[in-house]
């Protein structure tokens, strides 16, 4: 595949049954993008965490709501957008899972991990439509 941009969109229902499928597809696409083993692992993990959040927190497992995933990539970057049909949330209000007060909490580490491993992370609330999470992994021009 040349350095022109590739784009693939995927839409699933709000059930965790699809997370393995999404992981497989993400794996296929990262290979197509020429990612190395570490990049594949980090991108698969990031997509899994964010899609799980979209199903769980965004659409609250409502099977009538969809999660859309848009992959855009070329040799230099792998970008992912995930939309759900929920009310969104405020990134600036998320507790820091590494704060000693939160260390023993049993949740709240997903977005932290994604932000640690991805090069760019943002969240947009789209009024009346839902939430979009976007992140990018830069791929070293190898």
């Amino acid at each position, binding site marked *: 595949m040349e350095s022109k941009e590739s784009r693939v969109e995927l839409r699933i229902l709000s059930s965790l049954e699809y*997370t393995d499928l999404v992981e497989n597809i993400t794996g296929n696409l990262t290979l197509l993008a020429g990612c190395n083993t570490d990049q594949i692992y980090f991108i698969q993990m990031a997509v899994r965490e964010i899609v799980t959040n979209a199903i769980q927190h965004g659409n609250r497992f409502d099977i009538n709501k969809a999660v859309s995933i848009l992959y855009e990539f070329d040799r230099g970057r792998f970008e992912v957008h995930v939309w759900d049909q929920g009310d969104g949330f405020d990134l600036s209000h998320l507790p820091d899972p590494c704060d000693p007060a939160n260390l023993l909490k049993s949740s709240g580490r997903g977005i932290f*991990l994604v932000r640690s491993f991805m090069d760019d992370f943002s969240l947009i609330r789209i009024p009346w439509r839902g939430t979009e999470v976007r992140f990018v992994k830069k791929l070293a021009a190898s």
Partner: protein
Amino acid sequence: MSIKANTRKVEGVNIIDLSGRITIGEGTVILRDAVRALQQKNERHILLNLAEVSYIDSSGIGELVSSFTTSRNQGGKLRLLHLTKKVHDLLSITKLLTVFEVFDDEAKAIQSFRS
């Protein structure tokens, strides 16, 4: 794709050998059930062997933490054995290496419960 948990007892320590993926859903449930089964029998020395864990997600990490805290709340001890590089890195970045006692050697891990 999912996880297996086998429990064996060595010198008073319950070792749960986990293999596969500890992820949201089935993966975390199997881990939780294996730990709870021991806690219900009042077994207080639990060692989770993660050598064969190929993947863990944030829910899986959360489940390790819950297992640790429920154990501690009962006056028990839950420790970790044989972290793969991936799991080690995730526990490191989430600062959980400061919470868990982690071993590379089964005999030493077992011994640690004596003190």
